[in-house]
């Protein structure tokens, strides 16, 4: 890392979250606000919707909160602005140094898993920032969820600072600091409650829109080839009607399963998705006219059931990547069982739809 203080140049003019500067033997360190303004709040909402998520960062480097001196604690965090904001908003009344690592704009836990919130980056940055000249102690307080990326014993060897793992949630930091750096069991435990699951739903929906549009396109094409309806506009309208069960499967996989997670039977996400995912297809079998399938035979209706079930099940299985408790081994096992049925049902469904469309075309 060339000059670890080059980040200061990136902070001219100073953003709203910098309220001043404090002179230290090593550099003029920016003092950050512990209050979030409307810009910060809208930024948080936008990234939860997938907007601007690739570039929502703060420059990695050293910052101050309150009026820290050489005895003040050093808190380490990631350069994802959502993370940075979550931390500073809990530090009112605290005097501390904040060391922001370059995690490429990714939050602590994901970055730790990937290795970017890692031993090398931590030790490298602490050394480059010359932190030893700033504080008279040698303790770095890290978020507990940084642990998958940090070998605490190695950090000491590399930069002479001892890693102490703080609580999982920033909200508990004050209690942690004022209790002589002791965390309770609950402070060290990760949950996955409704509120947390709900906050993941918008991104799940947005990330999976493209394939869903492609599917709509294919259905439209098949309806046009079949020549079932007169004119493009009525074909488009009928396709939209046909598409409702697919849309339902999409919502089941991206929203309903995540929201109702603990209440849905089975531990397997593919099965949770399948269980609920059979419903749209079932409705098509029971009320075909409602979705524009009144004139279609059983192969088409079966195809809708198969394809929508696969959509709901796969999207549910994919949600495992966003949970706080599923394991890679578990997802591997799920995929081992689910992949062939997904491919078989998906292809068979497509074949039935295409065959129906082509046979109508030929008549």
């Amino acid at each position, binding site marked *: 890392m060339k000059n670890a203080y080059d980040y200061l140049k990136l902070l001219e003019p100073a953003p709203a979250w910098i309220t001043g500067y404090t002179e230290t033997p090593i550099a003029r360190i920016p003092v950050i606000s512990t209050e979030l303004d409307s810009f910060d709040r809208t930024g948080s909402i936008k990234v939860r919707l997938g907007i601007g998520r*690739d570039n929502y960062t703060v420059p990695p480097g050293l910052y101050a909160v309150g009026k820290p001196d050489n005895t003040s604690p050093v808190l380490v965090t990631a350069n994802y602005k959502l993370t940075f904001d979550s931390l500073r908003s809990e530090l009112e009344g605290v005097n501390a140094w904040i060391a922001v690592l370059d995690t490429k704009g990714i939050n602590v836990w994901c970055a730790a898993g990937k290795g970017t919130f890692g031993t090398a980056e931590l030790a490298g940055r602490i050394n480059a920032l010359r932190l030893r000249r700033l504080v008279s102690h040698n303790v770095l307080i890290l978020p507990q969820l940084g*642990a998958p990326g940090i070998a605490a014993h190695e950090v000491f060897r590399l930069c002479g600072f001892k890693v102490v793992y703080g609580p999982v949630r920033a909200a508990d930091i004050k209690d942690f600091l004022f209790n002589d750096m002791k965390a309770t069991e609950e402070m060290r435990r990760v949950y996955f409650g409704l509120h947390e699951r709900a906050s993941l739903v918008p991104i799940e929906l947005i990330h999976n829109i493209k394939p869903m549009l492609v599917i709509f396109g294919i259905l439209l094409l098949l309806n046009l080839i079949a020549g079932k309806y007169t004119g493009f506009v009525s074909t488009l309208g009928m396709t939209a009607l046909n598409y409702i069960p697919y849309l339902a499967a999409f919502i089941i996989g991206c929203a309903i399963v995540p929201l109702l997670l*603990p209440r849905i039977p089975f531990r397997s996400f593919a099965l949770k998705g399948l269980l609920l995912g059979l419903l749209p297809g079932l409705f098509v079998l029971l009320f075909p006219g409602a979705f524009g399938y009144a004139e279609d035979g059983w192969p088409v209706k079966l195809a809708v059931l198969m394809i929508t079930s696969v959509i709901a099940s796969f999207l549910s299985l994919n949600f495992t990547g966003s*949970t706080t408790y599923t*394991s890679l*081994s*578990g*997802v*591997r096992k799920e995929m081992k069982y689910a992949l062939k049925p997904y491919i078989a049902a998906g292809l068979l469904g497509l074949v039935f739809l295409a065959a129906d469309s082509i046979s109508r075309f030929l008549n």
Partner: protein
Amino acid sequence: MKLRYLKNVSTLELDKEKCIGCEMCTLVCPHRILVMNEGKAFITDKDLCMECGACAKNCPASAISVQVGVGCAIAVLNGLFRKTAPNCDSGSLLKGGKGCC
């Protein structure tokens, strides 16, 4: 309503002989499945392990091992098709290619 995932899949292994009783693993586990028992670490509920790797990474005695990796379905598929470890790279994430996260 405790959320539990699949049974008997976790790759978490603890070698009691190597354990030096430093307690780091008991500190970092996000699901609190490692506790101390007679001066050594002990796994209480292996099925609650999410294979995050925090314990193994912080064991100075290399007494714990676990297979870590990106655990989402698309990453697993990516790995299967490209015959690599699960990954969310499309092209190359590090070269600015668009990954998922």
